[in-house]
């Protein structure tokens, strides 16, 4: 089944630096979503970008989408220790179910104080 794949698998940075995570997927989508998961907790929705959008911002988050390359990136600016978490992209399937998402395996981000 279609699946987003995040890159890198793990990322370690210093507080105040920017963090960039990438997601690639295989087939056409209607939208792509990013989620965060703190250790031992459930996933929290961060941002949704539609296939006809190229960039979206929410606070310190910036998401881009390139449908020609079937890829997305999540940029977290001025990172904080509290941003330490796993980040997942999730895709729907164009022409598929209108309620089902497929999640990637995630990027583990560590922000060192």
């Amino acid at each position, binding site marked *: *089944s279609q699946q987003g794949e995040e890159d890198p698998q793990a990322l370690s940075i210093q507080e105040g630096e920017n963090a960039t995570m990438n997601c690639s997927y295989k087939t056409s989508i209607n939208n792509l979503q990013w989620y965060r998961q703190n250790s031992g907790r*459930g*996933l*929290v929705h961060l941002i*949704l970008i539609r296939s006809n959008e190229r960039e979206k911002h929410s606070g310190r988050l910036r998401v881009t989408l390139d449908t020609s390359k079937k890829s997305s990136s999540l940029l977290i600016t001025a990172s904080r220790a509290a941003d330490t978490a796993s980040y997942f992209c999730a895709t729907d399937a164009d022409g598929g*179910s209108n*309620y*089902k*998402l497929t*999640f990637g395996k995630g990027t583990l981000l560590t922000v060192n104080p």
Partner: protein
Amino acid sequence: DVKVTQSSRYLVKRTGEKVFLECVQDMDHENMFWYRQDPGLGLRLIYFSYDVKMKEKGDIPEGYSVSREKKERFSLILESASTNQTSMYLCASSSTGFLVQPQHFGDGTRLSIL
């Protein structure tokens, strides 16, 4: 605020037992989902439900069943628990829209089968 509540954070059961995991949402969402999350494998969809009494298999339904008798509650049942079902189980819900809507997750149940 949106809330998805899973009945247990941690659960320990024995091989062969019938295990029930419960999930309740307070957002009047039509869709509910059960995932399992394992290191290196990410989230895998077990079952989902798009309406009361309606269900569809996900990617890994073997060894599991589900029940949705009321809109707010979605139960995952391990018919005869086995050690390879030791995992983190996550429940989620979403509304129905023209496009796939964001999912809201509970905090998970870490299930150990001995």
